[in-house]
């Protein structure tokens, strides 16, 4: 159990990066706390610096997106999930319980499917928006 910060120091929409090996990011998504591995599974970028929207965080470098609840990528270029970790709050203090390997049972093709579908959608929405 690793202490993160006081709950009031992690307001909604914010994230904090823990310098562990590998680093972990803790998010406050509209009041819900989530923790995932901080390093994008695609390339070296810190997800704690990403764009938080609902339960998804978008990587600041190549716009890969991850579901904070599952660690699953929701669009390319990420194809592999990031690990998720349990978060608890004890007497106003936020703690992370790091997990070894929580996604080993997820079939890889399910990830690829979800990622490819979502990618096609978001890229086009973005392309036609401007």
């Amino acid at each position, binding site marked *: 159990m690793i202490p993160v910060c006081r709950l009031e120091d992690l307001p909604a929409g914010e994230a904090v990066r823990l310098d562990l090996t590998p680093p972990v990011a803790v998010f406050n998504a509209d009041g819900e706390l989530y923790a995932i591995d901080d390093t994008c599974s695609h390339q070296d970028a810190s997800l704690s*610096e990403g764009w938080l929207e609902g339960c998804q965080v*978008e990587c*600041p470098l190549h716009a890969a997106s991850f579901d904070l609840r599952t660690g699953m990528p929701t669009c390319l270029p990420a*194809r592999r999930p990031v690990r998720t970790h349990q978060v608890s709050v004890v007497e106003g203090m936020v703690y992370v319980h790091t997990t070894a390997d929580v996604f080993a049972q997820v079939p890889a093709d399910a990830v690829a499917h979800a990622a490819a579908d979502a990618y096609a959608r978001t*890229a086009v929405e973005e*392309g*036609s928006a*401007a």
Partner: protein
Amino acid sequence: MRTVTVVGASLAGLSAARALRAEGFDGRLVVIGAEQHLPYDRPPLSKEFLTGKADESQLALSDDEERAELDAEWLLGVRATGLDARGRTVVLADGRTVASDGVVIATGARARPLPGPWLRGVHTLRTLDDARELRDRLTEGRHRIVVVGGGFIGAETASSCAALGHDVTVVEAATLPLMPQLGRDMAEFCAGLHQRGGVRLVCGTGVAGLRDDGTGDGGAVTGVALADGRVLPADLVVVGIGAVPETGWLSGSTLAVDDGVLCDDGGVTALPQVVAVGDVARIGGVRHEHWTSATQQPVVAARNLLAGRTVEHLGGTPYFWSDQYGARIQFAGRRHGGETVRIAEGSPEEGSFLALYEDESGTTAALAVDRPRPFMRVRRGLRMG
């Protein structure tokens, strides 16, 4: 459409194959790649790959599962040499032909070489094979390296070489590198990064020629002669003076080529069943050599190809990034040159800042150095229009 041929097996070609399948194309899909490698990511070649932080397995853009799902025929290690006048037959260097109902041109660009005879010790950095060769050289002893060209590839390569302990000089013909892309203020900041990394930057003089050991063609490089008469000694020269779109193979086709394959703003050429994407494509008058463009253009182009006409147009905001000397530079937007640059957060002195390019219409572009969060906010704002 029964057969679609994607000519080019890098990021844009792979993205096109993905997009075609995602759009429901279930016919025969052929992907032709001049390099023998399966699709790999080029940006790390000048950075993590060169310094040895990443190996080849980490460059792969797809894996076995995805390729099984894409169900494409990969013809790798063979160059396309022609497209017939109707845009129906792709001719390969080994004499084979691929009859196609639709063609995606994604042949990318090649590194622009310096004129003159071929010399040992002179490298370009575009392909995995280029990067392998250069990386091998960089691990044998300490070199005196001259990087010709101060653009992003040149700067990243210089940064990686310096990090490996080599003696590095960058030569730039313009008064400052990256002026057209970034404007004077930001170009000055980037020029300063070289110094911070212990690399000399020589600006305002072109390269007159290379010096060799006297054995002529196939000899070894010994120095770089500058237009102002100076000679910089070098046993390794990396040439980073831009890229030339790979359009030579289209000379027998009816497609218009002018620094790229000319397309409408949906990626469609003069032939409705031929689209072009990525570095080789001049879409709506603009050719981007950006990683993100190579992933976004194919989505729209694939849709237009399958529709048989332009039903969707490319929008979006150009975006690129560069990692050099420990700094992450990110740029988004369309700068026209008339803007003033305002530092919105941080400062160049502290090495971390967000700069906004502004004119009377508002913010046209943004550049950040090690400020990913505020940059992302601005980039999304630009994206929304």
